[in-house]
């Protein structure tokens, strides 16, 4: 298998943790709430899913449990940020640290253990194509994740719910004047963000690399946060960014497969370096951020 076809086949799976977490955060940020705790929510979801699957609960129950656990953690954040009106940055960091601590605590007895992954489901015909065939042979979560992406895009863009979420983020006072429950909608959006971060962690720990190691999320939650900025809060660009980062994070394996001798620490740093470079390039375009950005992002809303 050439390095290129290896990357093409694997990039969607590698992209999934970024994609699921970033889509959840996108919805939360669209409603005007900045939750910096994704890394911790993913870590919690990862350990919960791993334990459930390891106790042979199956992947479906593992994902549900992970989603619920992370959503519960996101509710601690939501309560602090929305009810108590605490500083959103500090509240996000706090639940992030809490989630990573809980993840290490619960995962201690599972260090270096493995669980079975998921089988690949292939599209007949297409998966036999040269070079790009691997793209059409993915596990069930990837297919479901792509469907969910489509659903989130359509909801934000065309449905009344999406319009209300965006209105709440854009101008909460006007939304309230129109009779919408700003705080309630923000709670819902944050909970959705938590649920998706839980799924993202579950995928990372039980499907993508089904082996438990403390700190296995390794900054992917933070990159997901950066992805939302890269994508200038647009769903389609989140997908593009997530797949790009999936490909970048595969480069380490691909380089080995292709016999390229590159320093392994440098390769491990590559996603972080790319994040910094892209963040600089996108953020420098202030006009773009202003047009697409969420006006009330991070600001508390008082009654």
């Amino acid at each position, binding site marked *: 298998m050439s390095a290129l076809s290896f990357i093409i086949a694997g990039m969607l799976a590698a992209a999934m943790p970024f994609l699921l977490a970033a889509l959840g955060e996108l919805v939360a940020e669209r409603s005007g709430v900045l939750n910096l705790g994704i890394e911790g929510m993913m870590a919690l979801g990862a350990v919960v899913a791993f334990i459930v699957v390891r106790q042979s609960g199956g992947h479906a129950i593992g994902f549900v449990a992970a989603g619920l656990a992370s959503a519960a953690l996101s509710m601690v954040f939501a309560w602090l940020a929305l009810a108590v009106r605490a500083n959103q940055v500090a509240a996000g960091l*706090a639940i992030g640290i809490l989630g990573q*601590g809980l993840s290490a605590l619960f995962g201690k007895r599972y260090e270096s253990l493995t669980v079975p992954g998921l089988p690949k489901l292939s599209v007949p015909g297409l998966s036999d194509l040269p070079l790009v065939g691997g793209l059409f042979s993915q596990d069930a979560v990837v297919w479901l994740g792509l469907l969910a992406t489509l659903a989130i895009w359509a909801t934000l863009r065309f449905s009344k719910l999406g319009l209300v979420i965006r209105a709440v983020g854009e101008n909460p006072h006007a939304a309230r004047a129109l009779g919408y429950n700003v705080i309630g909608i923000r709670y819902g959006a944050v909970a959705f963000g938590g649920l998706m971060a839980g799924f993202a962690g579950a995928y990372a720990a039980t499907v993508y690399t089904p082996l438990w190691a403390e700190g296995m999320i390794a900054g992917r939650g933070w990159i997901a946060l950066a992805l939302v900025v890269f994508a200038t809060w647009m769903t389609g660009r989140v997908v593009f960014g997530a797949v790009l980062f999936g490909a970048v994070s595969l480069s380490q394996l691909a380089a080995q497969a292709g016999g390229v001798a590159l320093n392994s620490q440098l390769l491990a740093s590559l996603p972080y370096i790319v994040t910094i470079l892209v963040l600089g390039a996108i953020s*420098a375009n202030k006009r773009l951020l202003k047009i697409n950005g969420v006006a009330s992002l991070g600001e508390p809303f008082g009654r």
Partner: protein
Amino acid sequence: MGIRMIRRTTASRRMAVLAPMGALALAIVLNFLLYIVMGNDPAAVFYALLLEPFVSWSSFSEVLLKMTPLLLIAQGLAIGFRAKVINIGAEGQFILGAIFASSIPVWFPQATGGWIWPLMLLLGGVGGALWAVLPAFWRVRLNASEILVTLMMSLIAAQLLAYLLVGPWKDPMGFNFPQTVMFQWDAMVPTLIPGTRVNVALILALLWSALAYVYMQKSFQGYQLVVGGLAPHATAYAGFSEGRAVWLSLLIGGFAAGLAGAAEVAGPMGQLQRGISSGYGYAAIIVAYLGGLHPVGILFSSLFMAALYIGGDNAMVSAGLPVAAVRVFQGSLLCCYLAAIVLVRYRLVRDGQEAPA
């Protein structure tokens, strides 16, 4: 009947002291419930985690040793946080400080003289500040969030450290462990209290705290930073640019974290190795917030967090408490604090009841 939050006309000083204590009490209750569920003996954990660090001089001296990096880093971070410059990359700046300081004993292991350790601390500070230059430039010139960039720089710093320790800086006689040579005597910060590991860096951390107090509470520039954080437009009119606040905040925070990293390798560690940090850079964020971003408050919060580290080690040995429980305690303590601190600026009033003036 619901409860409403009414903004106080002035912040309550009584609550500013009571709220952190209430938060601590709540965090203790919540975490001990968790320990009971996990099957740990709560009385044994309580003694080991919260009392034992203070009962003997030898363990209290270890608390002071741990307090040193937390105090240094948190005082630097708090200056930025008050100016709304959120540097969460102290971990990386700490690592770079440790690397820069280690360059002298690694490259000149035979060097002697009383100038070595002060120069190492200085180099450490410079290294930490240099690691903060890119995030500052990215924020000021490219408008990129310093939160994300500083964090990415920390993740890169960890890889850089790993590279040095398995590559060019690995101790050739070290049985292939990822660590440098042990530093020579003159590369070590002198011990302050005989019979303990507490060293001169503690004095530096206390001096740094006094300096932070004067800078933030008394100087005009510190005042501008704080006002800039509260009302950026107002300070822009007054001719104080946001860019300057970003540069100052990140360079001060980076220098302090780098100094702490240097003091760690030239103190309790005595060499550069993987585990130089124990997450001080992240813990210091909690220390800064728990101290109310105030230099005096941070003295107390850094002492408490240091005791929690030592107590966590004790509780692991004597009561079988996993190390990760300390991080859970830290995170939940910050959550409780953020909830409690709201009482400083708001009063709670029942619906239908008039707020007393």
